[in-house]
């Protein structure tokens, strides 16, 4: 690769000056640098997190007390639908792609992603996708209001927002697939020559598996929404019973995408947590190999359990039993992961900086979400839990205190590497306690609401549910505010603060800690072997 480079260029290639492209357009719009693109992804994801969060605030405001005070029911449904679409596709997924962009090349000793121009494109599609989706809020008839699951026939009543929704989903899918191809190509081809698969940090492993899930299921979603489009505009009857179609077919296709999708949002989180806990326990990750196998097992199982989202649609007994048993099996590899994290802490030498605090909260609160998951796997009881606030509590425990907490933990963990400055530990701890207390006030009472019989996706409720809804709303407002505080902490850290060392954390292992902080614009340019002892999981046995 370096044969044709002139002496002049080699002189430029030194680490001491970054020669970042000059000017905003060249630096950000035209960038092919994995670190810049990672930054773009993270900023975009956070902007969407605040946007989707603002919708959640509207929802919690209306649910603060019984009766309709602020919004009409149809707008309420637009808010629940858009909140979910934006959080899933706009916040959580891009945030993990951002972390992947920043960290994967630095963790495997690669100079950049394998396909840098595609990398640029896969990011820059996203703002357009969400502009298209959000534009429906200003149209006649408003935004999609049939739920993020887009079940026909309801979603097809949405007027022309159907077309905007479908094309936005197509664009998000294209972006995700390109991102996934890039991750796979990078991990398979760009590892430093002496880095084997079982030397890779767990974050890299979980992302490799996630990327395969993405490639497998995003086209399925694209197909499903395309069928919605033709049903709406071209008189097909894929899902229209009056034309010989089958409305339940959509649910099968959607959840064949949708169940792997939930693991797309949690497997990279497992990876982040598996990096952070060993660092602050000053002890190698327990059971590295079984962690890799457990991740692969979860990914495989995620393809064969989809209809547990549909226990109430009227499937035959045999199908219900199969989906119940298969779903229960997911508890086994997930349990292995939790036990391994606890075993990593056991007999370590722990300190409790902000990333570790968020990781510990992740382990406990994600596990609580896992418990309610096991309960809902039981088909006969799920006929009670299904479509109530119990499931709302469940998936917010795994997605907010799971995925989002892992992203926040990762942001604190790697922010000194990205910015070159230490964040303010005191502010970080305030952010942690504020978030953790408020998020539980927000979501824990929703278990009770669901068990007491409150259906999800309703703008108004019977007075018996008033007390817990008020608690939940108060928690929601506090949690929302805590994330605005997080912006301030990150902003302050980027602008200045104590200089970070290369290693940043006392117990940190991994190639990313061998380069200076902030990480130079180009790292690991020589394609040479790396020091395996510096890797997080060094020699695995």
């Amino acid at each position, binding site marked *: 690769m370096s044969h044709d480079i002139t002496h002049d260029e080699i002189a430029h290639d030194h680490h001491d000056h970054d020669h970042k492209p000059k000017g905003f357009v060249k630096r950000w719009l035209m960038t092919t640098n994995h670190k810049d693109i990672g930054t773009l992804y993270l900023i975009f994801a956070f902007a969407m997190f605040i946007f989707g969060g603002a919708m959640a605030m509207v929802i919690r405001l209306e649910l603060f007390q019984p009766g309709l005070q602020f919004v009409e029911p149809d707008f309420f449904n637009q808010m629940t639908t858009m909140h979910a679409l934006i959080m899933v596709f706009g916040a959580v997924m891009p945030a993990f792609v951002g972390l992947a962009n920043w960290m994967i090349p630095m963790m495997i000793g690669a100079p950049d992603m394998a396909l840098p121009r595609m990398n640029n494109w896969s990011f820059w599609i996203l703002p357009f996708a969400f502009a298209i989706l959000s534009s429906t809020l200003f149209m006649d008839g408003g935004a999609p209001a049939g739920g993020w699951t887009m079940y026909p026939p309801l979603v097809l009543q949405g*007027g022309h927002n159907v077309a905007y929704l479908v094309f936005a989903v197509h664009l998000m899918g294209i972006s995700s697939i390109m991102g996934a191809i890039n991750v796979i190509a990078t991990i398979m081809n760009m590892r430093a020559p002496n880095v084997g698969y079982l030397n890779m940090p767990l974050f890299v492993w979980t992302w490799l598996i996630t990327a395969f899930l993405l490639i497998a299921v995003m086209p399925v979603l694209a197909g499903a929404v395309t069928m919605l489009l033709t049903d709406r505009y071209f008189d097909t009857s894929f899902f229209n019973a009056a034309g010989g179609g089958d409305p339940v077919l959509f649910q099968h296709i959607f959840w064949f995408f949708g169940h792997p999708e939930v693991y797309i949002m949690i497997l990279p989180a497992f990876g982040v947590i598996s990096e952070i806990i060993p660092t602050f326990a000053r002890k190698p990750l327990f059971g590295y190999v079984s962690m890799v196998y457990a991740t692969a097992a979860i990914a495989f199982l995620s393809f064969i359990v989809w209809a547990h989202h549909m226990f*109430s649609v009227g499937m035959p007994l045999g199908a219900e039993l199969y989906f119940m048993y298969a779903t229960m099996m997911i508890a086994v590899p997930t349990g292995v992961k939790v036990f391994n994290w606890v075993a990593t802490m056991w007999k370590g030498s722990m300190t409790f900086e902000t990333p570790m605090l968020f990781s510990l909260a992740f382990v406990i609160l994600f596990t609580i979400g896992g418990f309610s998951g096991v309960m809902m796997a039981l088909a006969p009881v799920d006929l009670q839990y299904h479509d109530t606030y119990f499931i709302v509590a469940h998936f917010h425990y795994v997605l907010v205190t799971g995925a989002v907490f892992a992203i926040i933990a990762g942001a604190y963990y790697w922010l000194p590497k990205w910015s070159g400055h230490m964040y303010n530990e005191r502010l970080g701890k305030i952010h942690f306690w504020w978030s953790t207390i408020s998020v539980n006030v927000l979501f824990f009472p929703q278990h009770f609401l669901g068990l007491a019989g409150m259906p999800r996706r309703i703008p108004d409720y019977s007075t018996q549910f008033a007390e817990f809804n008020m608690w939940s709303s108060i928690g929601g407002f506090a949690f929302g505010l805590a994330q605005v505080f997080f912006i301030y902490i990150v902003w302050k850290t980027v602008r200045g603060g104590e200089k970070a060392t290369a290693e940043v954390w006392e117990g940190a292992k991994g190639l990313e800690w061998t380069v200076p902080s902030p990480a130079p614009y180009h790292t690991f340019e020589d394609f040479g072997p790396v020091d395996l002892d510096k890797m997080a999981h060094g020699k695995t046995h």
Partner: protein
Amino acid sequence: MKKAQIKFMMLIAGLLATSMAAAEYGLNLRKGVTEFSEAAYGMHMFTLWICIVIGVVVFGAMIVSIFAHRKSKGAQAEQFTHSTKAEVIWTIIPILILVVIAIPATRALITMENPTDDAGKRMQFDLTIKVTGYQWKWKYDYMEEGISFLSTLAKDSNLARQKGSGIDPATVENYLLDVDNPLVIPANTNIRFLLTADDVIHAWWVPDFGWKRDAIPGFINEAWTNVKTPGTYRGQCAELCGKDHGFMPIVVEVLSQEDYAAWLAEQKGTQAVEAEMVDKEWTQAELMAQGEEVYNTQCATCHQADGTGMEPAFPALAGSELVNGDPAAQIDLVLNGKPGTAMQAFGNLLSESDIAAAITYTRNSFGNTAADAVQPATVKSMKQ
């Protein structure tokens, strides 16, 4: 941990415990009043306790580790990386626990899906009720008895739930959980439900019966129940079905078998009288009075009480060309609906008298000046 911190945490725990005791209602799943709901409740509790025990062990180990193995106490990190024995143990034990949970779950599911009588034969049902979901009401057909009726949100709840109504929901009895015509069924009877929908997917759920089942257009789903205790049981639609999804409750009155027989006789009488009414000539005033009533319960949700609608989804009736034009076109639209929109085929839903009255009302209200009367007999002739 400092003493002050421990005291603070105990205070919080105490506060939580009392607030939970105070909120006695609805902290847990309801036990319900059927064999199935009791089985679901039992399994819920069983699994919950297993989760709590696992939680105590796992989080306990974590908390011990957090307090004992911390650097500030001078803990030195050991460097072990795995233990095959431990990993095998914590793979096998969860599998065994899952098997233990799966056995009662399988049994309960079989009871629900393939019910059998005491002799092990396929269960016989004494009564079949067809439940049809509409945006946003339920229709109940008693298949053997030939009676049917619609069930919509009770009027006082409907008034209070309008945005800016100024009515405090706390003053409305059974706010959002009350209907005009409840489903009435006999106790201690095997009842089969056939569920379907006319427009979008709904789900019929009464928590005390222990199940919900989707009502899907083009499908007929099956479920069953046998309620032991007479009483009134309330539930709601559980599948998002559009703007008024939160406002189509379910109320089931379970009567003793004698009371049920009396109720049935009364219903048959009323429906016979209604059938006669179709053939008589109605006055304009009668049609308008009946029409206003029907319009406000069936039509006003979308077209609004003043006929202005909510464009573009729900067209205005005030000044509408259709409503001010040939009555036959309007009758046709109301009878057969408009596919792909929320406008239902009311021909299957309302009596000829109600349809004629509502149409007459719309043609002579909101500034519309058709100034004619549509007779139930006309509607009846167009329906055939």
